[in-house]
C-alpha cells in the first residue's frame, strides 16, 4: 500500500476528478475483489450487494469507508487538434453499513448509506466544448433500511427500502459575448430525491459454494425547484431570465447474479455478472419556469442502452491477520456512438483492483483497496457536433474500518 499512496502523492497536484456515472465503489473487501459481492457474504456491504445474504452474517457490525476518486481526462478536438484537460477536486464516495440482530437469530436488520451514482468533471476554462459543458457535479446518496431473513440454513432473502437524495450542478458557457469579450454562462443547480428498493436472494448449498441474485430498482430522481442562473450581457438579461427549473434523472435498475467458490480454506473465488438498465436514460430534459423566445426548454437525447458488466475476484488468506485480494472488472458503456457527452466521456473499459485486509484486533478490521481504470472514446456527438477523442485515467484508493460486536 505504500506504493499506492506514493502514487497518489505524485498525482495529487495534477488531479482532476471525474468518474463514471455509476459509482462501483462499495465495500472495500468487494472492491479489492473486482467488485464481486452478490454471491459471497463477508460483511455489512452485503446490504448493498445482496440483502439476502445479510442474514448469514454471524456478528453485528458497523463499518465506514471512503474511496477518493482521482481522475484526469483530456479531449482532443478532431479538426483543430486542440487538447483540453479537466481540472477539479477529488470526489469522495463513501459507504456506511450497520447490521444488527440477536445472535443466532434468523432475522437481521441493517442500515446502509452509500453513493450509487455520481459524476464530477470540471473542464479547463475556454476549452473546446465549453458551450456543451464546463462543469458537472452530480452526487447521490441512497439511504437503505433493510431486513434480511434466513429461511433455511442454506437460503436467505432480504429487502431494503431506498431513499435517494441527490444534488446536481451543471454549468456551461453560452455563445453570447459582451463588448469586453466575456461569454455568457449558465448554471443549473438543484436538489433531487426519489425512492426505490433493493432486494436479494442468497443460497449456500455447501460450505464451498454459494450463489446470489440481487435486484436494485430504478430510482427516479426528481428536482422540481432548481435554480437556473444566466450570466449574460446586460441587454440580453430579459431574454435569459434567471429562475427556477425542473428536471429528472432516472438512476437505473441493476440486476446481479453472483457465485463464490472456496477451493480450499485459504482461497475464495467470486464471479458476478450485472445488468444495468440504462435504457431508461433516454432524454435529459430541462424545463424552465419562465420561457422566452431565446430560452426554450431543452430536451437532449441521451439514448443510453442497457449494459452488462462482468467481475472476477479472489481473496487469499495470508495469515490470521492478513488477507490479500485482487480482481478484474469489465464494464460495457451504456453510451452509444453519437451520444458521448463531455459530462460522462464514457467507454467500455476494464478496471483492475488490489486489496488488503488487516485484522487490528478481534473486533476491528481495516480494509484497503486500490482500483485503476483507463478509457478512451472517439465520437462525433449528434447534438453538439463535437468531434474528437476523450481519454480518462481514474485512480480509486479506498479504505474502510469495520467493527464487529
Amino acid at each position, binding site marked *: 500500500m505504500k506504493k499506492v499512496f506514493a502514487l497518489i502523492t*505524485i*498525482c495529487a497536484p*495534477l*488531479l482532476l476528478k471525474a468518474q463514471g456515472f455509476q459509482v462501483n465503489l462499495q465495500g472495500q473487501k468487494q472492491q479489492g475483489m473486482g467488485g464481486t459481492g452478490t454471491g459471497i457474504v463477508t460483511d455489512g456491504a452485503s446490504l448493498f450487494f445482496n440483502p439476502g445474504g445479510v442474514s448469514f452474517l454471524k456478528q453485528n457490525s458497523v463499518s465506514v469507508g471512503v474511496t477518493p476518486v482521482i481522475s*484526469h*481526462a*483530456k479531449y*482532443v*478536438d478532431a*479538426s*483543430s*487538434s*486542440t*487538447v483540453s*484537460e479537466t481540472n477539479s477536486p477529488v470526489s469522495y464516495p463513501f459507504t456506511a453499513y450497520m447490521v444488527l440482530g440477536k445472535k443466532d437469530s434468523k432475522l437481521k436488520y441493517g442500515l446502509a448509506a452509500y453513493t450509487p451514482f455520481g459524476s464530477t468533471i470540471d473542464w479547463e476554462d*475556454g476549452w*473546446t*466544448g*465549453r*458551450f*456543451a459543458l464546463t462543469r458537472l457535479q452530480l452526487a447521490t446518496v441512497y439511504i437503505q433500511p433493510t431486513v434480511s431473513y434466513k429461511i433455511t440454513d442454506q437460503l436467505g432473502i432480504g429487502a431494503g427500502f431506498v431513499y435517494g437524495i441527490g444534488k446536481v450542478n451543471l454549468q*456551461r458557457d453560452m*455563445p*453570447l*459575448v*459582451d*463588448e469586453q*469579450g466575456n*461569454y455568457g454562462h449558465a448554471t443549473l443547480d438543484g436538489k433531487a430525491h426519489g425512492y426505490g428498493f433493493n432486494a436479494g436472494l442468497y443460497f449456500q448449498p455447501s460450505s464451498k459454494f454459494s450463489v446470489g441474485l440481487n435486484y436494485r430498482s430504478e430510482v427516479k430522481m426528481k428536482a422540481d425547484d432548481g435554480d437556473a442562473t444566466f450570466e*449574460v*450581457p*446586460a*441587454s*440580453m438579461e430579459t431574454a435569459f431570465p434567471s429562475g427556477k427549473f425542473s428536471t429528472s434523472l432516472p438512476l437505473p435498475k441493476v440486476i446481479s447474479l453472483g457465485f463464490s467458490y472456496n477451493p480450499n480454506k485459504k482461497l475464495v473465488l467470486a464471479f458476478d455478472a450485472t445488468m444495468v438498465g440504462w435504457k431508461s436514460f433516454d432524454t435529459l430534459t430541462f424545463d424552465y419556469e419562465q420561457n422566452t423566445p431565446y430560452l426554450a426548454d431543452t430536451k437532449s437525447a441521451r439514448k443510453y442502452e442497457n449494459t452488462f458488466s462482468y467481475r472476477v475476484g479472489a481473496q487469499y488468506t495470508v495469515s490470521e491477520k492478513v488477507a490479500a485480494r485482487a480482481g478484474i472488472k469489465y464494464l460495457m458503456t451504456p453510451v452509444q456512438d453519437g451520444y458521448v457527452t463531455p459530462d460522462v466521456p464514457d467507454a467500455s473499459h476494464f478496471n*483492475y483492483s488490489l486489496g488488503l485486509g488487516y485484522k487490528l484486533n478481534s473486533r476491528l478490521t481495516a480494509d484497503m483497496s486500490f482500483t*485503476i481504470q*483507463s478509457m*478512451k472514446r472517439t465520437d462525433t456527438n449528434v*447534438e*453538439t*457536433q*463535437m468531434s474528437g*477523442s476523450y*481519454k*480518462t*485515467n481514474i485512480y480509486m484508493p479506498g479504505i474502510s474500518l469495520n467493527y464487529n460486536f
Partner: protein
Amino acid sequence: MVFFACKPHVDVPAVSKGNLDLTNYVAIGNSISAGYADNALYYGGQEVSYPNLLAQQLKLAGAGNFKQPYVDASSVGIGVNQNARFALKPNADCSGAISLAPIAIANEGDFNILTTSVAAQGPFNNMAVPGAKSITTIYPGYGDFTKGPGNFNPFFTRMTANPASASILSDALAQNPSFFTMSVGNDDVYGYALSGGVFDGITPSVGPAGVGFDASVDMIAGAFLQAGAKGVIANIPEISAIPYFNTVPYNGLVVDATTAAALSAAYAPLGISFQAGPNGFIIEDINAPGGMRQIQAGEMVLLSVPQDSLKCGGWGSMKPIPDQYILTADEISQVNSAVSAYNTKLKSIADANGLAFVDVNAFMHTVKTGIIYNGVGINASFVSGGAFSLDGVHLTPLGNALLANAFIKAINSKYGSTIPQIDATRYKGVAFP
C-alpha cells in the same frame, strides 16, 4: 499497469505542409480578405481577417510571419461612407421603442487611417484592399490620389510605397510569394448589388485585362503561377445567402383593414390594391407607370433602408422606397448571372492550373441553412446568427474562423498537407452590450 500515468497521454496528429512552400504567403482580395467588418476597417476586424487566421495555422506547418497593414488599435475605424464602425447599442426608433440596433460608435470615421501611410511598415502579406475589383487589382497607380475620387483607392494609398505607379498585384508580386490566396470578384458585382443597382456597375466578363473580369483574373492568377507560387482560389457567394439582401422582408408592409382600404383607394389609379396583413412595399421604378409599383415576391429590400423611414416616414406605403434600397427582379437576375459567370471562370482557373479551390458560395449557403459547431448554433440571421457582422455582408470573427477552416480543408485536400483547422469556439460572433 505500467502504462498508467497520472495524466492520460493523447496522440495529436502530426502537422505537415505537404508539397507546399509556405515561406511567403501573400493574400489578394477585397474588403472580406482585408478584415473589414461592422461596416469599417478597424483593428479588431483586421486581427481576425481570414487570411490572418489562416496564416496562424500555416505557421504551425512552418510558414513565415504574416504582416497586415494594421490601423491604430484604438481607432474607431473608417468605412466606405466615411463612417465609424458599427456596434450593437440600445436605440430608440421614431416611435420611441427601444431595441438593439447597429449604431456607428462615433459621428464620423477616423480619416487618419486614409491619410496616414503605413507603407514604411510593409511590405504586407495581406494585400487585400477594401473595394478592390478584379479590374482595379491590376491598375498601376491605384493609390494615386491625384487621379481624383473614383480613380484611386485610399485604402491602397495608405499601404503602398509607390502610390503613383504600383498596382495591388505588382506590390504582391514584388514580395516573391511562394503561396497565395486569391479572393477576387466580390466588388465587381457587390458594388452594384449593395447600392440597389444605382451607384456602381457590374464588371463584364469579357474585355481586356482592366476592363473584363475573365482577362483580369487570368492575369492575376497567371502572375502568381509564373512566380512559382501555389495557392488557393476562392469563388464568391450568391447574394441570396447574405443577410444584407434577405433580412428585410419584401412584404413588410403590415396594415389593418382600414389602412388597406385607404391605401387601395389612393393607389387605385395605378391599379395597386392592399389587404389587411402583410403587403409588398411600394417601390420606386422609373419603368413603371407613375414611377412606382408594388414590390414582388423574390425582389429584395436591402438592409441599408432606413428603418425609421419605413416605420414612421411613410416609406413603402405613402411614398415609394427609393431605388438604391431595392434590388428588382431584373437587377437580381443581372447580379446572379454575373456571380455565376465569375464563379465558373474562377473554378476553371483553379482546375486548369491544379490550384486548390474554396467554394465560398457553398460555404455561405451552408451557413444560411445553419450549422452546429461544437455546441454553438450558427446561421446567417442578422445579428443573432453569429456569422455575419453588423453590416450584414462581412463576417464576424467566428464567421472568419469558419471561412479560414474552409480554406484549410481545401489546402489539405489539394496539397497533401495536414494543417490543423482553427478551434473556432475561440472566436466571437456579434458582441452584445
